[in-house]
């Protein structure tokens, strides 16, 4: 079953008097359980495509389907519901809630989903252990390193078992060792849970691990290749 299908997506932005093309008739299909890297130079359209797939931004034209559901015409509330139950996000700047501890950040999504306190506790402890943060559950983000914060963000993204994880430059702020650990974590989650990973990056370390690479330039898909990961 096709997890994500984008058909002729177009998106332009206004920057002063200029009109910048974010997506230019992009069509792409990503199967369930794929590990895909969107690779493009800055301004190439990878984040715009990621935001459109994640329902964070609406295309000017075209269609986005997740499974058999078209999402580009959903209301704001329905999009939020769709994100809550189907998508995990990992951002470049971690984007944790600063006043909550690691555990509370991880539990946040489940809380919104209405998961019971007991279940939240059990799942958050398990997932924090899985990302290697055992013993750091009660720390707030400010007391954690960049790598640890990104692990919390990953734990938050996967704890409610979404069908896909969208990651936007997840390694941009990490040193190479931590970045490699994060990629290993992504790979293992992808294998273990069959979670679809779509990663927008221009980090060659990440690209080397991907089985599929979608190259973009000026809002267009210019190359879509499969490779044997490193």
């Amino acid at each position, binding site marked *: 079953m096709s997890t994500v299908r984008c058909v002729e997506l177009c998106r332009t932005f206004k920057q002063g008097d200029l009109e910048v093309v974010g997506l230019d008739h992009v069509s792409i299909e990503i199967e369930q359980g794929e590990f895909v890297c969107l690779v493009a130079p800055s301004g190439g359209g990878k984040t715009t495509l990621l935001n459109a797939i994640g329902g*964070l931004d609406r295309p000017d034209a075209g269609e986005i389907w997740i499974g058999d559901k078209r999402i580009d015409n959903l209301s704001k509330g329905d999009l939020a*519901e769709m*994100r809550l139950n189907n998508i995990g996000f990992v951002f470049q700047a971690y984007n944790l*809630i600063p006043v909550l501890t690691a555990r509370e950040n991880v*539990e*946040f999504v489940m809380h*919104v*989903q209405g998961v019971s306190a007991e279940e939240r506790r059990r799942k958050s402890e398990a997932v924090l252990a899985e990302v290697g943060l055992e013993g750091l559950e009660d720390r707030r983000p400010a007391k954690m390193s960049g790598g640890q914060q990104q692990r919390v963000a990953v734990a*938050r993204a996967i704890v409610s078992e979404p069908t896909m994880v969208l990651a936007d430059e997840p390694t941009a702020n990490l040193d190479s060792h931590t970045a490699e650990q994060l990629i290993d974590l992504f790979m293992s989650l992808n294998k273990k849970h069959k979670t679809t990973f779509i990663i927008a990056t221009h980090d060659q370390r990440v690209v080397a691990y991907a089985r599929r690479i979608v190259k973009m330039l000026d809002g267009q898909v210019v190359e879509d290749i499969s490779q044997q990961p490193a």
Partner: protein
Amino acid sequence: MNIALHLAWRNLWRHPRRTWLTIGAMVFSNIILVFMLSLQFGMYAMMIDNTLAVFTGHMQVQVPGYKDDMKMRQSIPDAAALGATLRESLAIDTIAVRASTFALASSEERSFGIQIIGVQPEQESGVSTLPGLLREGSYLADPNASEVVIGSVLARNMRVSVGDELTLLGNGRDGSFAAAVVNVVGIIDSGMPDLDRSIAQMPLAVFQDVFFMGNHANEIVIKTADLSLVAETKQKVEGLLPANADLVVHDWDALQPGLKQAIQADLASAWFMYGVLIILVAFSVLNTMLMSVLERTREFGIVMALGLKPGRLGRLIMLETTLMGGMGLALGVLFGGGLVLVLGVNGFSYPGMEEMAEQFNMPSRIYPHLQLIPLLLGPGIVFISSLLASIWPAARLHLLQPVQAMRAA
């Protein structure tokens, strides 16, 4: 603890100084409101009690129409007996019967039109403070003696003093000519010139004799132990009136409509001032919550990206305001109530108050009353105003787009 409550509470203390300043503004205004409203309510109760204690009483039994057109013909038959029945049935001693008419009073030198009132001397001091406000002489003692006590201004105008005689000329209840000579036994100084200019009291039995009233009188005055008992007592009195008698019971509100209007006018002008205070506090809350929302735009973008709907985000802002307003309300009520409690026990006065109070036979200190309504009304309105002020910052979140919000600095 619920994570929304957790989040709201911690968000409040991201900027403790700003939060405390806003809560401080709420507490300050709440203390002022609790104190001022308690003081006002206390003063109104004192004002009502003192005004009614002079003469009117808390309620009166009358013939319908007498209140608006005080003709002596509109009288209650066998009034003294009815008064006695009410005293016994209600187990209240402070019930007195009165009759009243207008007459021409003449001394050796001058004549004046006055209101002459027939009172039961042994009962009158229970419903009126006038018997205790004698400047000279003594109050009516013998219920059958042709004696009179008069106001101090009237005595001065008529150039009479204790021991002098007054001649009364007027109409009897049956329309016939009524006349009597009475001895002045006391001079009343109530401190109210209008009252002291026109009042004269004589024993009811003598009044009924002089003005051909038979056993009729015009009003049965009832004073309850407390203002709060008026409604209940009025209901009981209505139930005790003879079924075939055409009588009505008027409470103080109907007998002294000006008193309630004066209180309402005073309260209205005070609420204007309180309104300004509440609006200032509401703007302070609006400012705090708006700043709080603006500086967390990026964070709101993140949680929206995670799947939180704008409505729930709005509720989070409202919850933060509720917590802040709740603290302001609790501390304001605590400190304001404490202040009222202390002053309620010890009372307070201001320069010149004692002299004025003595002149009007009033208490020399003001005692604010700690009551539920003044204690919670002002702080409750501040709390609701704060919530209303946070609606706009909360509503703005509906306009937020996750992508744009996450790009915010």
